[in-house]
């Protein structure tokens, strides 16, 4: 995917303890790199690959700001080890835009004012992308349940729900 940030060649995280090579596909680009066993996926994405779109909100598995897709399913990347995703596919917010065109979910958040400070937004959008892939026409209740692990301290969620409904509509019921 053209929009993926170019990875840095050397890891800014010094490797001290046990480490291994992992092979992981991130936003459709393959990476083969050494990581320390204890490196969290979110640090691998942000500090090793420079993909800082994935945020760290709480660092205690509560907020969902760090949500990425692991083989299509939303998970909290602050609570996954990089070595656990060896051989698997990750999608981050940087992988949503294709060829300069925003993803319908991104369009939805812009059109419906689905963010204020924007801190929760990358995680919120990844959860929305996974929801619409599984359920192209979710009800409001289904949307609210799906995003119940992603906290937003600004919007009150109303416009986030509308943004996801907007995306569902523009996707025309397709994922």
């Amino acid at each position, binding site marked *: 995917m053209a929009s993926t940030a170019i990875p840095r060649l050397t890891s800014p995280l010094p490797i001290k303890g046990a480490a291994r090579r992992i092979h992981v596909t991130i936003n459709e680009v393959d990476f083969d790199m050494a990581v320390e*066993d*204890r490196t969290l996926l979110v640090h691998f994405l942000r500090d090793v690959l420079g993909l800082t779109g994935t945020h760290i909100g709480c660092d*205690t*598995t509560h907020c969902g700001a760090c949500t990425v897709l692991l083989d299509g399913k939303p998970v909290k990347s602050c*609570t996954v080890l990089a*070595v656990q995703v*060896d051989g698997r596919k990750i999608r981050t917010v940087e992988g949503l835009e294709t060829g300069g065109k925003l993803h319908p979910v991104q369009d939805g958040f812009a059109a419906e004012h689905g963010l204020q400070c924007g801190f929760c937004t990358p995680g919120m959008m990844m959860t929305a992308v996974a929801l619409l892939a599984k359920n192209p026409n979710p009800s409001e209740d289904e949307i609210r349940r799906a995003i119940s*692990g992603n906290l937003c301290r600004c919007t009150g969620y109303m416009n986030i729900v509308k943004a996801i409904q907007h995306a569902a509509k523009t996707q025309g019921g397709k994922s």
Partner: protein
Amino acid sequence: MIPPEFDYHAAGSVDEAIGLLTGNPGEAKVLAGGQSLIPLMKLRLASPKVLVDISRIADLSYIQEKGDWLVIGAATKVNDLNDSKLVGSSYPLLADAAAHIADPLVRNMGTVGGNVCHGDPGNDLPACMVALGAQYVVRGPKGNRTVPASDFYQDTFVTALDPSEILTEVQIPKAQPGTGGAYLKMERKVGDFAIAAVAVQLSVDAKGTVTRAGIALTNVGPTVLNAPKAAASLLKKKPSDADLLAAGKLAAEAAQPTSDLRGPADFKRGVVQTLTQRAATLAWSRAGGQR
């Protein structure tokens, strides 16, 4: 927060995982979904030297009926229970609980095996397993053994599992016509552990008379609590409102809540009483009982 250093191993088979556990006595821990263990390691409340990842073992993830049992592989994700048509149609107690464990993101990583092995009194599946009369298949260096869920939980984070053993499968009595259950959980917000929760599983005969009852309580004691007196009080009855109230009171007596951020102990006892009444009512009608 970055966890302390450890050696990670992705086990290819259960036997390889057991070999790694026995080869590193006292230092190795099983890693399943990591949704309890990784937070504990980040906070330095746990610092195992060796992590044995069992989530890549191919044949540990399944939900199917086999003989007299519904069998669930240890590495099955909690969200797979939510997605399972079989669970949704025939195992309402499990379906209720799975929809209220943590949040959807945690459920995509967290496993059934991890939920029943962790031994946190706030975990929701242990009470379901006790009420359902489930048993666990555990494998260690000497082979397999089977432990009833009701004998498994000893104290907070203390279970019948030996450090060299792995829970491989949960076995739940197969749903029959005339069985039904319900799990009701009161929580402060999505993603929080229960203030209190109650699992009820009932079997009824053609007249709606209760022939088997299991009741267990979440997060109101050092471990999941079985409430056999409350369950027995429903036997041989078509439970009336007074019977349901009596069962609720017996369940509240079985609870051992402490006062904490989720509320004072007396309040939690009251929650147990009310949830037991309601869950038993729902379980009875789901089992086919009619007034």
